[in-house]
């Protein structure tokens, strides 16, 4: 962990949520850090806890959630922020969601939506706020911003609306952007465009990014480092380039082998048996053990710690022994 100079530091985060009347663990000992200007990917399947991690950081957990552990932003504990300091935090840490339509008021114009935070929280005058909004739209490739500000969400396509969301997230000049599957609902050509915009703006402005996705290759393309989550815990974290070439956790390797390849069909895909589980469904010991082809008795005995290995961190007791078996072997199955 890069303790020094980290903009965001999450340490030993545990989160429980009420599920069908019982408090259930959704995040188990999540630790990660993001440096100023660094892009970190958070990859996982459904129930892995990747969205919950972002929500915990954004202080947007559902009501009734209980958390322990620490989330520090710029050196101060996020949980202790109230009133104006919480508002400041929300200006500095912006969130972009998967489905823009679910996060925008359908009866308010784009202009109202985009300028609200500036005008109410920052006291920016109306004309100035609108001018800034038009500039921000230009930054994400949307011309004739003036006209767009007068339109309503239903008049815009999904890709266009997602660019509006990005523009609006950047209006308060955040230092950290939490992007939760921002392109999953978009067509692949639109995805490429939106990712390019996000990537370019991030580099120009030195923004830190937490990018949540289920797509290892997409995370690898835009993130310096990628963390892989399974059952509410981080099982591996490495530089993205290394993660693709030399995964250290059996789950990462299996996930990458299970995906069909555009370059050619295989007789049978290397499917992972069983299904992904949530943290509260995870068995004793390693959560991935029931699906892991390398699991032994000791894997089931106690929960492995996330430990430092060459090049990253991995939560697998057998990581060193099986390192040779995990390198790319997609063709041999």
């Amino acid at each position, binding site marked *: 962990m890069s303790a020094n100079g980290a903009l965001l530091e999450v340490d030993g985060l545990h989160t429980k949520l009420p599920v069908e009347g019982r408090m259930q663990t959704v995040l188990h000992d999540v630790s990660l850090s993001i440096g100023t200007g660094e892009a970190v990917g958070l990859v996982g399947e459904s129930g892995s806890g990747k969205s919950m991690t972002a929500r915990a950081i954004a202080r947007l957990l559902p009501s009734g959630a209980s958390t322990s552990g620490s989330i520090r932003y710029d050196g101060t504990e996020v949980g202790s922020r109230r009133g104006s300091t919480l508002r400041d935090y929300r200006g500095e840490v912006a969130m972009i969601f998967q489905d823009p339509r679910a996060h925008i008021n359908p009866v308010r114009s784009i202009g109202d939506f985009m300028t609200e935070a500036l005008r109410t929280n920052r006291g920016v005058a109306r004309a100035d706020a609108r001018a800034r909004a038009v500039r921000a739209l230009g930054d994400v490739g949307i011309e004739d911003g003036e006209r767009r500000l007068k339109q309503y969400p239903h008049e815009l396509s999904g890709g266009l609306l997602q660019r509006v969301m990005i523009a609006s997230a950047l209006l308060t000049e955040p230092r950290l952007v939490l992007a939760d599957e921002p392109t999953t609902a978009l067509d692949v050509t639109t995805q490429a465009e939106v990712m*390019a915009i996000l990537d370019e703006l991030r580099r120009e402005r030195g923004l830190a990014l937490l990018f949540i996705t289920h797509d290892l290759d997409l995370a690898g393309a835009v993130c310096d480092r990628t963390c892989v989550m399974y059952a509410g815990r981080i099982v591996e974290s490495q530089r993205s380039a290394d993660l693709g070439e030399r995964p250290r956790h059996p789950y990462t390797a299996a996930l990458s082998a299970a995906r*069909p390849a555009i370059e050619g*069909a295989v007789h049978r*895909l290397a499917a*992972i048996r069983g*299904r992904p589980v949530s943290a509260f469904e995870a068995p004793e010991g390693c959560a991935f053990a029931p699906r892991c082809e390398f699991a032994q008795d000791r894997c089931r005995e106690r929960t492995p710690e996330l430990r430092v290995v060459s090049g990253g961190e991995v939560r697998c007791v057998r990581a060193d022994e099986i390192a040779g078996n995990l390198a790319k072997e997609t063709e041999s199955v």
Partner: protein
Amino acid sequence: MSEPLLEATGLRKDYGSVLAVDDVDLAVEAGGSLAIVGESGSGKTTIARMLVGLTRPTAGTIRACGRDRSTPSRSAAERRRRGSEVQIVFQDPYSSLDPRHSAQKALDEVLRLHGSGSDSRARKARIAELGELVGLDDRMLRALPRDLSGGQRQRIAIARALAADPRLIILDESVAALDVSIQAQVLNVLADIREETGVSYLLISHDLAVVRQLTEETLVMHRGKVVERGPTSQVLDTPQDPYTRLLRESVPRPGWRPTRRLRARAAAPGEAGRAEREPTSTTEGGRRGG
């Protein structure tokens, strides 16, 4: 030469002034597997709906198993016969299964209509057989959809389509909503079924890797029109149409970097492209991807 299993010619669908499908020809040979690839608004799902009779074409003919089905069926018997020829599996198993029916019951209903009829022992045996084919055990067959995962539900939907013993199954984004590890299981099941039963597939998909894995022939659609067609490997390895190339270049892969194609402020004032509109005939964006 024998007639294709499914053949559509001059297929067209207008929605008011919008032309959703424009003069599309397609054919699936018996035992073949065809993909229709495209993005939202390309018309691919409208084609699927017309082929199964959920949407009526504005023009064109559809023939399946040697019989015309361009117009709505006139009798229950005709509807049943069409159902036993072509089945469809939708993207979302949550909304396509009755929440009050177990898999067993859903399959039984189809078997009563098609095939095994009143012999409950034969139906039971067939349900077990279908369960085995898609990898659902007894417990899963007895469970209600809400107690099953998305992948298990989608396997029920596939088993239900198979229960009618169709010659062709239309897979409308059937694996798109599944987690990667589950998607691989379902894709393997689909390959096994084809090997064992000789059923044909028409896959509607935006995912080129899934298309590669499951089909031999591909048709690429853009704004209601077919822009390219051919063997899947050829279309994906050496795409000829600029739009197919753009699709291919937009897929994230190791070493891929997203690049901007639209640039509002940098655009020359004269041609000032409507920035929100996707470009159709440029690949310069993707080329630098490397």
